[in-house]
């Protein structure tokens, strides 16, 4: 069996979000459960039908157990791989294999975080994580992570290829313009390049607008085999392929700061799908920072290495541009509750269903989703999705 044998064999049949933006007074399990219920109902299934689960969390080491307990389910397939925010894209391979092998029939991928409004503060959580996942070779230098690691990635890209802060700002502005078309987006106010450039600097060359939002939010989606998907409530969105590449943990161990694991995951995902970047109608990239979008466009093959800056100029990835990227507003302007992979996947599904209203990309039949994880593009996971008529 090869990855190609799994092509289109499963489909995403239900999606749901909850508590996006600010979920004041709610726990992360509470909003996760709301999103899970919404996704299951969206599919036309009942929670009792869910017999597989994929979930991960930045604080709890045995998180799948917390989730099955809370949801009151006893799945036959339990998956808790945590490769950072890419996890909820990477989970697709595991769900595909389990479904194809007949180990289970309906897999729920779910995530939730109340990092913005939680009364158990972000500062304490960061300190706790640094203690539990200590890096003695970096901690003494106090990088403000993740921004500082991605800032050094951006600085190197600028040095090697002449990418400018203005190019980075174009990414932030494009995301905002998409968010303005999305009633569910958190940041929808006006934003222009000058405002990005003149904003408060966080870790050079990033201002606050080069960094993703810090919001609450939960996301869930349901995957079944394609034969079952056709009889369910929604237009199925088939997973043609998914591939994950994991290269390092910390930025000092990233071999070339200008080349991300998407180079590998993208090649493998496109090969298994039998499609390429030119065939993609919609692109959803995990934009933790503005440089992520530029790097992913290069490494997935939408442009050459070093050409990502000029590629995004003049609103090229904004509404009305040449390539629709992050049509919900992305992590930069829509939602970013610590790990964004499931949200990128859900936006691709909504585009392929044709339910995106004002921001809908006309006749979208194919989408690429690129998850990002770790504090320095450490792991990335690429999926190619398509409607039934693009199979």
């Amino acid at each position, binding site marked *: 069996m090869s990855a190609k044998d799994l092509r289109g064999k499963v489909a995403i049949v239900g999606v749901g979000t909850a508590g996006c933006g600010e979920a004041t007074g709610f726990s992360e399990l509470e909003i996760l459960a709301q999103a899970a219920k919404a996704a299951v109902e969206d599919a036309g299934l009942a929670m009792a039908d869910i017999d597989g689960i994929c979930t991960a969390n930045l604080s709890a080491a045995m998180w799948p157990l917390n989730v099955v307990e809370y949801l009151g389910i006893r799945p036959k397939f339990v998956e808790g791989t945590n490769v950072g925010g890419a996890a909820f894209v990477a989970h697709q391979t595991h769900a595909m294999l389990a479904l194809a092998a007949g180990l289970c029939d309906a897999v729920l991928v779910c995530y939730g975080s109340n990092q913005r409004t939680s009364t158990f503060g972000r500062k304490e959580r960061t300190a706790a994580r640094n203690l539990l996942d200590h890096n003695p070779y970096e901690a003494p230098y106090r990088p*403000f992570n993740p921004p500082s690691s991605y800032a050094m990635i951006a600085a190197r890209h600028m040095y090697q290829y002449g990418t400018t802060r203005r190019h980075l700002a174009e990414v932030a502005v494009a995301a905002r313009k998409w968010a303005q078309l999305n009633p569910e987006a958190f940041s929808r106010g006006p934003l222009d390049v000058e405002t990005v450039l003149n904003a408060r600097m966080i870790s050079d060359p990033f201002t606050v607008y080069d960094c993703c939002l810090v919001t609450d939010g939960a996301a869930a989606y349901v995957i079944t085999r394609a034969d079952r998907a056709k009889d369910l409530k929604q237009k199925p969105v088939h997973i043609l392929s998914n591939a994950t590449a994991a290269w390092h943990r910390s930025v000092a161990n990233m071999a070339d700061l200008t080349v991300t694991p998407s180079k590998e995951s993208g090649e493998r995902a496109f090969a298994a799908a039998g499609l390429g970047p030119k065939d993609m109608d919609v692109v959803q990239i995990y934009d933790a920072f503005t440089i992520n979008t530029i790097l992913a466009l290069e490494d997935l093959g939408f442009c050459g290495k070093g050409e990502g800056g000029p590629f995004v100029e003049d609103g090229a990835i904004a509404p009305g541009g040449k390539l629709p990227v992050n049509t919900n507003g992305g992590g930069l302007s829509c939602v970013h509750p610590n790990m964004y992979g499931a949200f990128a996947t859900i936006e691709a599904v909504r585009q392929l269903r044709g339910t995106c209203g004002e921001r809908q990309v006309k006749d979208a039949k194919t989408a690429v989703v690129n998850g990002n994880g770790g504090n320095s593009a450490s792991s990335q996971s690429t999926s190619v999705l398509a409607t039934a008529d693009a199979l």
Partner: protein
Amino acid sequence: MDGAPDQGAEAHYRAALNQGRLLIQRCESCGKHVFFPRSICPHCWSESLAWVEPKGSGTVYSTTTVRRKPDAGGDYNVSLVDLDEGVRMMSRVDGVPPGEVKIGMRVAAEVIEEGGGGLVVFRPEGAR
């Protein structure tokens, strides 16, 4: 291996640093230098890693200024430095304002005492 057999690579590295010496590893099997210290070579997976003292000279591979309000200690530098032996480490460049640290700058390592132990920092080459 000149590391004590009852001590792992991380502890050996830390002990040397606390005595003011920066050590890195060199794989006796494939010849490549290794940092951070490990129990097996990440290039050829041999266990024959020897401790060597690097020249200490290197080049800034990338850099950032972490912005902090003056009352929180002010801005500071974080850099990735490529040692001439071919390994990269996170550190910082002292002796110049954080904003003046540039990619490509030649720097020299120095072990200082900070946070209750030895710490590797760099200074622009030629600066004292």
